């Protein structure tokens, strides 16, 4: 671990003044919330900030559900959100995504804000023994494109970075058209979650639209006709405690056996939480017939590009969509 200064500001205004910025390796100051990802990055020398600004006690951790929808304070833990009755009943996809994430110990410690900003699991990013990683050291190259890339993304990639976004929660949230409330020295703004993470392009080291100093203050999930009948499906190499190989978040508004409206997002395959509007459009008005679902799911593969070891994800993600819709559709 590198030597850094740990700031424990008394209030949020004081915290914002340090201009910390999450999700950028070149930022001299960085926030720490639950620390479950940050401490790993510090220990492995992936992050070497001069200053760590603790958010402990500074952000709201309340979970509120009302007619408008759900509001999750950024400091709420994964564990608390996962079992909150309103979340379980009205937004099951969120609860399921969380309960399929990490372990109980990690979920007790990890926060909503930190979850959305956790760094990629790309093993080259996390092993400083590899010199080449554009995300870690801008301009150094990418070790994954010609390397072992079973873990990597097939959509939203660029020639500079193919790292997958690891958050399960974010996949569920983009399916539900959630947004984030950001707070900075200049005030507050609202960003739809789908626009919050950036595609890698030729700047993979900039992961979000956060400006220096800005924090995520809360997550808002609008009430919708689909949220109640939602489901998170996670495919992985072992039964629990592992990041997704491929995952699918779906939410359905059903009219008898017909799909009135569908929301579908994918995890494990995208450089950011990946919503597939074309699949949603193709599903709308259709039935739960497997062949129909399969035709709609095939649209998710448009533009997908495998790099060898991860080619299988293009097929697997379509199957995951079909299965997740079948499961959600079969729910009362």
């Amino acid at each position, binding site marked *: 671990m590198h030597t850094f200064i740990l700031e424990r500001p008394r209030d949020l205004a004081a915290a914002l003044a340090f201009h910390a910025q999450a999700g950028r390796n070149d930022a001299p100051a960085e926030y720490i919330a639950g620390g479950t990802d940050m401490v790993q990055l510090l220990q492995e020398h992936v992050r070497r900030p001069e200053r760590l600004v603790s958010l402990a006690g500074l952000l709201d951790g309340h979970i509120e559900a009302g007619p408008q929808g759900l509001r999750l304070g950024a400091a709420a833990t994964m564990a608390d959100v996962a079992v909150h009755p309103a979340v379980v009943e009205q937004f099951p996809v969120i609860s399921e995504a969380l309960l399929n994430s990490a372990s109980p110990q990690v979920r007790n410690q990890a926060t909503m804000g930190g979850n959305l900003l956790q760094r990629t699991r790309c093993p080259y990013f996390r*092993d400083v023994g*590899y010199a080449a990683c554009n995300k870690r050291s801008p301009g150094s190259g990418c070790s994954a494109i010609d390397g072992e890339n079973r873990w990597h993304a097939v959509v939203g990639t660029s020639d500079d970075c193919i790292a997958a976004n690891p958050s399960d929660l974010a996949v569920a949230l983009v399916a539900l058209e959630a947004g984030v409330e950001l707070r900075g020295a200049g005030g507050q703004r609202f960003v739809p979650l789908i626009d919050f993470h950036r595609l890698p392009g030729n700047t993979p080291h900039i992961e979000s639209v956060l400006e220096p100093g800005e924090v995520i203050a809360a997550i808002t999930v609008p009430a919708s006709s689909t949220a109640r009948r939602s489901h998170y499906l996670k495919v992985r190499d072992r*039964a629990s405690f592992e990041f997704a190989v491929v995952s699918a978040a779906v939410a359905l508004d059903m009219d008898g056996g017909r799909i009135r409206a569908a929301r579908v997002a994918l995890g494990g395959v995208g450089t950011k939480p990946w919503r597939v509007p074309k699949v949603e459009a193709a599903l709308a008005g259709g039935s739960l017939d497997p062949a129909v679902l399969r035709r709609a799911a095939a649209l998710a593969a448009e533009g997908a590009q495998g790099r060898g070891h991860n080619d299988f994800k293009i097929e697997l993600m379509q199957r995951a969509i079909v299965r997740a819709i079948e499961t959600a559709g079969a729910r009362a």
Partner: protein
Amino acid sequence: MTTALIGQPVSRVDGRQKVTGRATYAAEFEVPGLAHGAIVRSTIAHGRIASINSVAAERAAGVVAVLTHRNAPRLAYRPHKGAPDPDVGERLHMLQDDQVNHQGQPIALVIAETLEQANHAATLVRVSYTSETGTTDIERIEPVLPTQKNDQGQVRPPETRRGDPEGALAAAEVKVDYTYVIPRENHNPVEMHATIAAWDGDRLTLWDKTQWVHNVADEIAAVFGIPAENVRVVSPFVGGAFGSGLRTWPHVTLAALGARVARRPVKVMLSRREMYYGVGYRPHTVQRVALGASRDGRLAALLHDGYQETSTYEEFSEALLNASRFLHSCPNVYTRHRIARMNVHTPTYMRAPGEASGIFALESAIDELAVALGVDPVELRLRNEPEQDEFKRLPFSSRSTRECYRVAAERFGWSRRTAASRSMRDGRWLIGWGMATATYPMNYAPASAMARLLPDGTAEVRSASSDMGPGTWTSMTQVASDILGLPIERVKFTLGDTRLPRAPVHGGSMTMASVGSAVQAACRKAREDALTRGGANDVTEAMRRLGQPVEASVDVQPGDASQRFSMHAFGAVFAEVAVDPDLGETRVRRIVGAYGAGRIVNPKTARSQCIGGMIGGIGMALMEHSVVDGRNGRVPNANFAEYAVPVHADAPSLMDVIFVEEDDPHVNPLGVKGVGEIAIVGVAPAIANAIFHATGKRIRELPITPDKLL
């Protein structure tokens, strides 16, 4: 006399210490004045260090010393080969020259007041290399026969032939001929390797995680050119090892070297990532198995040709092909074992080294043959039961395969299996039932033990063995209590210290046979002595009368039984899997294993061993894989997030372990064969065979991850 303790399911005598955090592991000893060492490791696989600049590191806060090949003291490195060291080649010498032989090779040691200071300063060491072309991609290497014709004695001949295997294969009515691949796997015990070294003049104490304290002392003495008696090694508890603690790894030397230069005790503990570079691993293997049989299912030809990775500086080889030479009856057999020399660090023994991998290939192939013949897999094996060890031409001292098949099949409900693949379902899930045979040799090595009886009716029994988890503490206490006729609470067994009588390496499933026999003999001798001298017929009374301690030390040696018998444990493993046909996920639902492993000293700890082996086998079958980057030999998934081992949710709720009655008077005085390693053998092929039964897909490359089943 108390009731017999051998054979009783006694709970672990050290269990309370472990679960209350009072068992002290290597890194936890409190040694005054301790400094911390951090290892700087190479980031190339092959070449030379062109320059190494430690100025910034030396100036960093808290740094005591930075050692590189430029300033480290020259070390004696007298020749030393312990039993777990490869016969051919030489270990890497630490910080003695500029040569880099593998990724992650130690190239500097930073010693600082705190661990964080050492780790930080380690990142400030600037290194540049002159890379040389290396070979780190096993797919591009032509394997060769080992240099030494008979590696490790006669145990693992590189090439064997009986009958006319090629001719018999060509003429066979039915044949299968495929190649099986198992990637590199790491032991990944929960406790990382750690050493604390403290010098007192030219005497050295090492608190170390090891499966063999005496070998650590011997090696470090050889490295530093001092008498072995000057080195004391202490290792009371080991938090799992699976073989990773058999050899003495470079960090042990570095800790001792650092302590000598710093003139104060130094601790070196590997991080999880370093565990993939700093200790050995189960090597990547590629195996062709060709079987020929008559239409009625008699094996006519068996060819097993395998190779495995090793380093450029040592020729490691494991018993990949041994079982193929005797497990099933076959008149025409060819085996060839080759090695692929690469710029990697030397692999080592990992739980059932050789057998676990070789039997995966063999037992998958037997299953393929059963399918080709349309014969039930158990029936096929029964038709090829040998009368004797056809390779050694010796009778088996005991062999309970038939009984194992029978009881395990019955417990499993095998008769309800429908033969066709994809014929069994549970809702969406495809269900598959598969089985495999298991074997592991009975090993027995010279061992010593001391028993000391005290007038108050207690006893102290000692041997410098180890307990990496199987329950040595407990089983030895049981043997001693049983022989002495003392209640278990009155017997104190001690292990893990070079000051105790010498024990063999705690590996090869031979601890119960070897150390157990020594403990038995020492206790017998002490008991007889006490009874005669005390003139009583129970130990407590005799000792009360004697009023002074009675001591007996014994060395046991294996006799000539291995010249007269082929001695192995045998078993049968049955597994049920459920495979999601769309998503490719496999869940193991239950495993039944039956073992003929001689006398079982403690059915509780033995069962735990077997369950651990089954779970390890699930890891091998479905998820474990140290991904080696063919470009540079790094292991990108050298961590616990991307290297998957089974978690609780992967362990089937039903794991049934059956020990069949076996009374084998030939193997050793205790009549035990050991269960630690056979426990993992056969599990991976049973699962792979079950997956074939479920899906109709034969996966010949482990691990069987979802992508392979889409």
